[in-house]
């Protein structure tokens, strides 16, 4: 396909969420995976080199066009944009879920030392975390984990890209 790169560009541009290789393969049936990867790589490089506001990034298991971060002051001047804000309390709860997942509410509360019902609910509503199942212990408490949306919002390819957590030194053991 001559214009594979352009087709990939169009598909990624039109999609609302990051487009993974699997989806591209599903649409471009006759094209080999490695050719698609090559097209994506070329696009990433092209937008990188070009002196524009856009870049193609790999997040949440797919590719997405975004503005480069140094343009945010201008974008935020758009009156119809309400910047995303996450409170410190919510961010702390989110951090515990992200690093300790799958994690129970009681465990989060033990770490933070406060009731986390409110922040947990807020994060569920924003689809940054989700209930991923139940723990196989008496009472079968719900366990929580992060979502794909979490990866998308925090510009992470996958969970292994989370910044490392400071080593917790074991005390008196």
């Amino acid at each position, binding site marked *: 396909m001559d214009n594979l790169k352009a087709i990939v560009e169009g598909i990624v*541009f039109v999609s609302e969420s990051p487009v993974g290789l699997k989806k591209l393969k599903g649409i471009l049936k006759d094209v080999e995976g490695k050719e698609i990867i090559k097209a994506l790589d070329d696009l990433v490089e092209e937008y990188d080199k070009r002196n524009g506001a856009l870049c193609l990034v790999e997040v949440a298991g797919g590719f997405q066009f975004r503005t480069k971060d140094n343009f945010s002051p201008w974008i935020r001047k758009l009156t119809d944009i309400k910047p995303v804000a*996450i409170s410190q309390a919510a961010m*702390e709860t989110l*951090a515990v879920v*992200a690093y300790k997942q799958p994690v129970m509410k009681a465990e989060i509360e033990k770490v*933070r030392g406060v009731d986390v019902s409110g922040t947990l609910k807020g994060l569920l509503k924003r689809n940054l975390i*989700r209930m991923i199942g139940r723990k196989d212990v008496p009472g079968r408490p719900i366990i929580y984990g992060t979502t794909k949306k979490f990866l998308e919002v925090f510009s992470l390819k996958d969970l292994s890209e989370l910044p490392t*957590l*400071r080593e917790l030194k074991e*005390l008196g053991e």
Partner: protein
Amino acid sequence: MGYEIKLDIFQGPLDLLLYLIKKNEIDIYNIPIAVITEQYLEYIDVMKSLNLDVAGEYLVMASTLIHIKSKLLLPVHDDTEDEEDPREELTRQLLEYQAFKEAALNLDTMNLLGRDVFKGGYLVGSETDGEHSLEELSIFELVEAFKVMVSRINPGEIMEIDVERMSLSERMNEIMERLNKEKALTFNDLLGGLSDRIKIIYTFLAILELMKLRVIKAYQSKPFGTIRIFLAVED
């Protein structure tokens, strides 16, 4: 002492303790409990005098601190050499909390979509209206939807939904699925292969429930003979 700090900037008792430790340049592995307890209680008093809601967690921590302090004052017995330092658990908690507090700050420095970077057509309304695609539906929305409805109907009709009930539904669905395919099943077909006691009980309850609902029928050709189950209504 000047309390220039707004108390709601603390994310809880652990956060306040960390602040006090930092302010006094204290070694977290060797916390002078008496000093810290005194300062902690002063903060609580200030909160109260400002008519701020002091969350229960702050008071629990206050009593923990006092408890540790009194333990440290007790004379050490000879046979307690194994006993751990009463401050140890607190130190462990503080260190863990500190690590996650740092992690939260790190997360905040990432390129946040909608704050630092933007995707095409990213506008208020387009994203926040909860328009989630079918692929990533969250159970939370499902449960919320149900809760809203339950609050609308009269309280007498609210049934307590529990895990057991849902386990039962799961088994009922499985039985119906098999019956729709295989037309007839014996008790043994359903119960025979099961080794999990709980599952056997649920399967049996599910059969009874489906019979009660008049969705399936059970026949037995002779006493103690094989029990066969059929759909009550053939489609």
